[in-house]
């Protein structure tokens, strides 16, 4: 490559002077002071191409400039952690030279304007993050938020298309979508959330990193050709949605899962040839720019790229477009010089395009050549390490103060418990998600031991007796009412879900979906949530090994509820410990671990009855939480337990109903409490787990709980008659057939979707 020292500006593009005079950098989402910093780094005015590169590398999506200082609180280390945040995905040791790889990521803004492709490519992107680590993807999960399902046709359209898009991508890839959660709430009306998580499995010696090494080594492009789709997707993702967002449709990529399947298999073959790959990184957000710059920066090298060699699907693409395209299904590799043909041979077998597009260089220059000219020459570290970092102002919102005096229990006492039960069971937030997960192939790979619909999904690991439990969780209402408590609960509940399947929580990945950090009230929410999550991670020994931040989730100046989503993975040491929530046998004793307090603030019942949430959310005592989890895990591993189910939204009433519905059995419950029957049944107090145990084992459990200082209440027994009978303080408050509850539970979402064209249910 002939070296020309002077960077040229291309015709048809704004000149460096025009950019400055007309403040065109603002169009790319850069602030004036950021533009000045770029000039400082380059020691001259940036060209349009260079400015584009800085703008995506310094976007919130790539640089975490608004959240970095807060994220430092997360514990990221642990004896099992092989790779924490900073690579494509986190990696945790699970013994036998195996490791689990996982990460969650948002695709909110694309899904808001083009739900099918937005969701599909969200899945595609997170899958690439996992297999770029050398892992074979074994499971997908997701976490979705939409506006009110019943009142808005637009919401039904978004929901239907997002689910279809996720199904389209995951099913074709042959990766089971085994779990997830979905919440409908007006706060997400204009800004739905689509978070996708992928879990993979690798042997320790297959672990790959996104790093460029060795001067002169080739940089190889593999996969789909580059088009004009998704240009500036990362920048788009870092802005508020507004009326002009529809015009950002071109910033949404179009996915081809077939292409990605070929890319996956080709990469797996390269990984199997143990010493072939020196570095591999997905071209995801900010496309070729981010992958190449990060790989070079991590390796401590420079990089020269010849953009004429980049495979393209359209003619006349400019360097700006090539570098900023977010075309899907592309991977960037670095191999030792002389081994290009081995990569080529594998790509040829799978019918994939591949091309050497550059070389690793000495020093710190990131140089791009196009038609023989130097079109960008940037000190690399300034792209990756010198991104601006902001600590924003915080302000306690007025609503938080006003909520101090609200007493949610009083608001709800007029509700008859049986009516309350009907309401929560048929709430689209709590009802069966079968309509969704039956569209996902959740059994491909023939490893799914616990299907969607229980507390967490379980995937068996072939060739071992082990299994992995996984769950996504996040209750934004609690976070809204109290960010610190809500943050703790997000982590604790995800861990509790995993524990209820018989797994020890290993670690988590998080996706922080918030409004604009430039609003002091939103930044207060973000800071509080991260603090609460960090505390819970510390106490429960679940390090954060990766994640994603999605800010600016706002429409018309209105932020979504602060929504941190936690993706938790746990290890089950033996398949015989796999536990589910369904009641298994009449005569089993029903026990409740944990304490029930008057905590209806932010509860599902409050939201259903009053149409809004207020007061304070449940309080999470981390020490109690840890003990409850220990008791349950110990009991499951010692075979005392027939079913375990986390108490969450809808409280004890909902959990009892779910265990009955799943098992097709009834329950006879008699409880004494100082609380009202309604509060006792629908309070969402944390750190509670519902167990059913064989009668002759119950004393073991009661003794174990006592030893550990965990409150254990004998509630009643599982009965053959499929009826839910609840008697509180001597008064019968609920008597309902399980068939009727099942009908309400199963029909809620299909009924809400029936106006939709493609629904038959």
């Amino acid at each position, binding site marked *: 490559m002939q070296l020309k020292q002077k960077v040229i500006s291309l015709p048809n593009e704004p000149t460096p002077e025009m950019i400055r005079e007309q403040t065109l950098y603002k169009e790319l989402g850069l602030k004036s002071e950021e533009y000045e910093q770029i000039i400082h780094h380059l020691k001259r005015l940036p060209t349009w191409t260079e400015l584009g590169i800085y703008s995506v590398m310094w976007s919130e999506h790539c640089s975490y400039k608004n959240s970095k200082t807060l994220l430092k609180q997360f514990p990221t280390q642990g004896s099992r952690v092989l790779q924490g945040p900073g690579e494509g995905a986190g990696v945790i040791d699970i013994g036998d030279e195996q490791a689990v790889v996982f990460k969650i990521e948002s695709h909110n803004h694309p899904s808001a304007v083009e739900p099918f492709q937005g969701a599909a490519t969200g899945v595609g992107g997170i899958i690439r993050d996992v297999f770029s680590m050398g892992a074979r993807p074994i499971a997908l999960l997701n976490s979705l938020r939409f506006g009110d399902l019943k009142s808005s046709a637009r919401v039904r359209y978004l929901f239907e298309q997002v689910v*279809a898009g996720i*199904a389209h991508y995951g*099913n*074709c*890839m*042959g990766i089971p979508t085994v779990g997830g959660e979905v919440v409908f709430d007006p706060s997400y009306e204009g800004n739905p959330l689509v978070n996708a998580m992928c879990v993979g499995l690798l042997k320790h010696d297959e672990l790959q990193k996104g790093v460029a090494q060795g001067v002169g080594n080739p940089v190889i492009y593999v996969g789909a050709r580059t088009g004009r789709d998704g240009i500036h997707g990362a920048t788009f993702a870092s802005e508020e949605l507004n009326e002009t967002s529809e015009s950002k449709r071109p910033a949404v990529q179009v996915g*081809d*899962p*077939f*292409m990605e*399947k*070929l890319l996956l298999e080709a990469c797996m073959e390269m990984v199997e040839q143990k010493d072939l790959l020196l570095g591999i990184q997905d071209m995801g957000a900010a496309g070729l720019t981010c992958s190449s710059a990060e790989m070079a920066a991590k390796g401590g090298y420079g990089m020269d790229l010849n953009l004429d060699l980049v495979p393209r699907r359209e003619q006349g693409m400019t360097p700006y477009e090539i570098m900023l395209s977010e075309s899907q299904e592309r991977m960037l590799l670095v191999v030792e010089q002389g081994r290009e043909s081995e990569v080529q041979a594998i790509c040829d*077998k*799978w*019918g994939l395009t591949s091309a050497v597009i550059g070389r690793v260089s000495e020093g710190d220059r990131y140089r791009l050549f196009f038609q023989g000219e130097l079109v960008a020459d940037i000190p690399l570290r300034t792209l990756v390490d010198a991104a601006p970092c902001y600590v924003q102002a915080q302000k306690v919102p007025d609503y938080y103060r006003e909520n101090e005096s609200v007493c949610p229990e009083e608001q709800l006492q007029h509700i008859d418990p049986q009516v309350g039960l009907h309401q929560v069971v048929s709430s689209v937030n709590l009802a069966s998600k079968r309509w969704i*997960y*039956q*569209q*996902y*192939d*959740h*059994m*491909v*790979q*023939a490893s*799914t*031991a616990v*299907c969607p619909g229980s507390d967490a999904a379980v995937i*068996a690991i*072939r060739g071992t007796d082990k299994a992995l439990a996984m769950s996504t969780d996040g209750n934004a209402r609690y976070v809204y009412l109290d960010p610190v408590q809500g943050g703790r609960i997000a982590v604790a509940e995800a861990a509790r879900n995993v524990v209820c399947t018989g797994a020890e929580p290993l670690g988590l990945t998080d996706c922080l979906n918030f409004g604009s950090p430039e609003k002091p009230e939103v930044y207060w929410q973000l800071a509080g949530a991260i603090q609460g999550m960090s505390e819970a991670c510390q106490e429960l020994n679940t390090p954060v090994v990766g994640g994603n931040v999605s800010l600016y989730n706002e429409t018309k100046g209105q932020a979504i509820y602060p929504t941190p989503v936690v993706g938790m993975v746990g290890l089950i040491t033996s*398949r015989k410990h*796999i536990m589910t929530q369904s009641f298994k046998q009449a005569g089993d004793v029903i026990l409740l671990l944990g304490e029930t307090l008057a905590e209806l603030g932010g509860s599902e019942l409050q939201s259903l009855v009053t149409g809004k949430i207020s007061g304070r959310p449940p309080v999470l005592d981390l020490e109690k939480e840890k003990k409850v989890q220990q008791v349950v895990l110990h009991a499951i591993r010692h075979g005392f337990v027939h079913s375990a189910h986390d108490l969450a939204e809808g409280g004890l009433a909902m959990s009892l109903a779910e265990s009955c519905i799943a098992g097709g059995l009834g329950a006879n419950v008699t409880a004494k409490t100082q609380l009202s029957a309604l509060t006792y049944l629908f309070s969402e107090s944390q750190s509670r787990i519902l167990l059913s145990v064989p009668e002759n084992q119950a004393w073991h459990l009661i003794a174990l709980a006592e030893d550990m200082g965990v409150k254990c209440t004998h509630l009643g027994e599982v009965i053959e008659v499929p009826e839910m009978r609840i008697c509180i303080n001597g008064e019968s408050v609920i008597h309902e057939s399980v068939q009727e509850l099942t009908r309400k539970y199963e029909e809620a979402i299909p009924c809400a979707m029936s106006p939709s064209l*493609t*629904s*038959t*249910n």
Partner: protein
Amino acid sequence: MHFAVPIFPGSNCDRDTIHAIEDVLDQPVTAVWHQDSDLKKFDAIIIPGGFSYGDYLRTGALAAQSPIMEGIREAADQGKLVLGICNGFQILLETGLLPGAMRRNDHLQFRCSISRLSVENTQTPFTLGFSQGEQIRIPIAHIEGNYYCDEETLQELQQKGQIIFRYAGENPNGSIDYIAGICNERRNVLGMMPHPERAIFDWMGSTDGVKLFTSMLQYWKENNGAA
């Protein structure tokens, strides 16, 4: 009994199928790339599920043009056992080894669930271990499983006992006559939408797929005198 599992670009149940043969039958199995057409050394072929060629054009249509189909056709002609599961069934329809065609599910959505089937004919190499009319549970996962054929073909399938599996209870895709699986007249080629390889261990939720694999092995042993 040596099995071949053909792999097309986009196959995604190939590994599951190979594992099922290993785990259930403990017999040798080889993954064969779709560009190889020589399958002479194999005793049976199982075309796995997935999205060969991304389902572009029509499900199974592009795979049906692969070189390996020659070898599969040859094996079928020789009376060797050929089983097509899900996308494998779609491919067998596209090659004409089985009659009829697939349409999109009548509700237009992908459907994954454990379906109840009834075994309609046990006089085949694939079902000899089942009892007539036996109700079994096998997972399905497809968006194009709505089997269709003309009236004349349907009558022929019915009269010649070529309908092997029917959905019992709910029909998950709208297929004609509740058809879930059919064989050819000679009964050595079976296509089925449900995935028996996903029902071989208790922890999977059903073990009803086991008998399909053991039936194949039993048939082969009886006809080849091998132990």
